[in-house]
């Protein structure tokens, strides 16, 4: 699979990553080599079974109210907070 710089930039955008032009070249080479390797899966006969990737073990909890960590504790590790709120840059001018 051929990966060009535009495609790397597009994937980085989807992944919320900002890349320098040197990084784009670096990842272009690496992704091309890795995606070339994983294409060997084409050689495996595909079964008709549809795989969902969901775990076979899924236990459900009872729907009961439990105490949670609380707002004061929740913001304690925030890089920027105001009272019990997370602080973010202004969105509406």
């Amino acid at each position, binding site marked *: 699979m051929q990966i060009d710089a535009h495609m*790397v930039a597009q*994937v*980085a955008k*989807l*992944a*919320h*990553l*900002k*890349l320098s032009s040197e*990084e784009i070249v*670096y*990842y272009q080479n*690496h*992704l091309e*080599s*890795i*995606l070339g*390797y*994983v*294409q*060997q*899966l*084409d*050689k*495996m006969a*595909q*079964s008709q*079974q*549809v*795989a*969902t*990737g969901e*775990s076979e*073990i*899924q*236990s*459900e*909890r009872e729907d009961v109210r439990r105490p949670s*960590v609380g707002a004061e*504790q*929740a*913001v*304690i*590790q*925030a*890089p*920027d907070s105001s009272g019990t709120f*997370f602080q*973010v*840059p202004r*969105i509406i001018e």
Partner: protein
Amino acid sequence: MSSTKISSLSAKAIVSGLASRSFALDDVIATFVERTKKVCPALNSHVFFSEEVISKQVDALKKTSNPESYPLFGVPVLVKDNICTMDMPTTCGSKILAGYVPQYDATVISRLRNAGAVIFGKTNQDEFAMGSSNENSAYGPVKNPWDLERVPGGSSGGSAAAVAAELVPVALGSDTGGSIRQPASFCGVVGLKPTYGAVSRYGLVAYGSSLDCIGPITRSVEDAAMVFDVISGHDPKDATSLHSGSREIPNSEAMVSKKRIGVISELIGTGNDLDTTHSFKEAVLELKALGAVVEEVSLPEIEYSIAMYYLIATAEASSNLARFDGIRFGHRSSDPTQSLKELYLNSRSEGFGKEVKQRIMLGTFALSSGYYDAYYGKALNAREQLKSAVKRLFSQYDFLISPTSPTTAFKIGEKIADPLSMYLSDIGTIAANLAGIPAISIPCGMSESRLPIGLQIMAPWNQETSLLQLAGIYEKKLKWSERYKPNV
């Protein structure tokens, strides 16, 4: 007892020594604290170590009225830095979580504390558990205690190096594609990856959620079993947690007799180095001498396991690591003029390392519109076929074995520029994660250049008891850890 002797003791010997008053809790703690201060700088095995935090735990332990009822009373345990601890930072070896202290303990940590263990610090690792050499840590590479110019393996490299160097008798690691077993093999210690779901992942920072497992790294199989017994069991906080009972380990050699063991032929080929091939053949002879029926079996799907893994694990990682956005915790970019969107981009780009960005992008690509079916969907389908093939093999065999890794520990810097070559070093371990079966690595030999070699034993789902029995019997026969020790 001298401090040198205490540092060599197993967890079991420490518990019984304390119970019989052969030595005091303060002697044990002082021994391991002094040894850590002396050896740790050369290995770079720790990312957090605090005598104050240790003292607080010891003071609390001293107040307990019946120490004999605690199965790990006074045992120092190190913890990989992707497992949440509320009295120590949890950074995952990443800049993006520098200084982050969780508000809660992971379930495995609560269980260890309730069993009387002393959490002795946090170990260095590949960033977010992404790596096979421990060179991808934001806090520098870990060195292998057998040869300081070589890697300890990864991603639980700090845990394996610390146990091998007798800085603790027990450490916890996590294993998504071999991250407990491969470093255990490189460092000459025991590493157990349990059945998927046997040990709660509540409080483990997620990498590949359908693959991640927490397990013990120790210097004996018996200690691995003791720790597994404490940390395993159902946890309502983890929706993928299994119900399981207690496990005792009989030492009878008769258990091996007539057991059917399959050697995976695809993992004993030309890709292995000569020392590994030789030691593995010796291990097969030893198992036959114990009465097992050992024969080659074919698992052709395993040749595709790395391709499956690097699509499934990275797809899951790209989703799991989306939570690191610089808002709720972790690193935030400091530019005061940035918009909200720029804050996300800058915080993530400044905080994540090279390999993590690569895997996030690989996973994002595999899940993206137009490529999902051709990559991620195909990998899921292949994984189901691998699982079915493993199930078929276990209908004929009690265990499957292989070398844990195709080579011994490689030099620092040797593979870092070529990700594919690094990924290929995990060929022996990944299938157990994809299938969800338990697997253990135990030392089985030594290379000519005095580097440890590991034997991997895999068992059917939830068969940790028989897996640990076989590994324990083999270990007692070989007496590897009595013959070899690193010079650190």
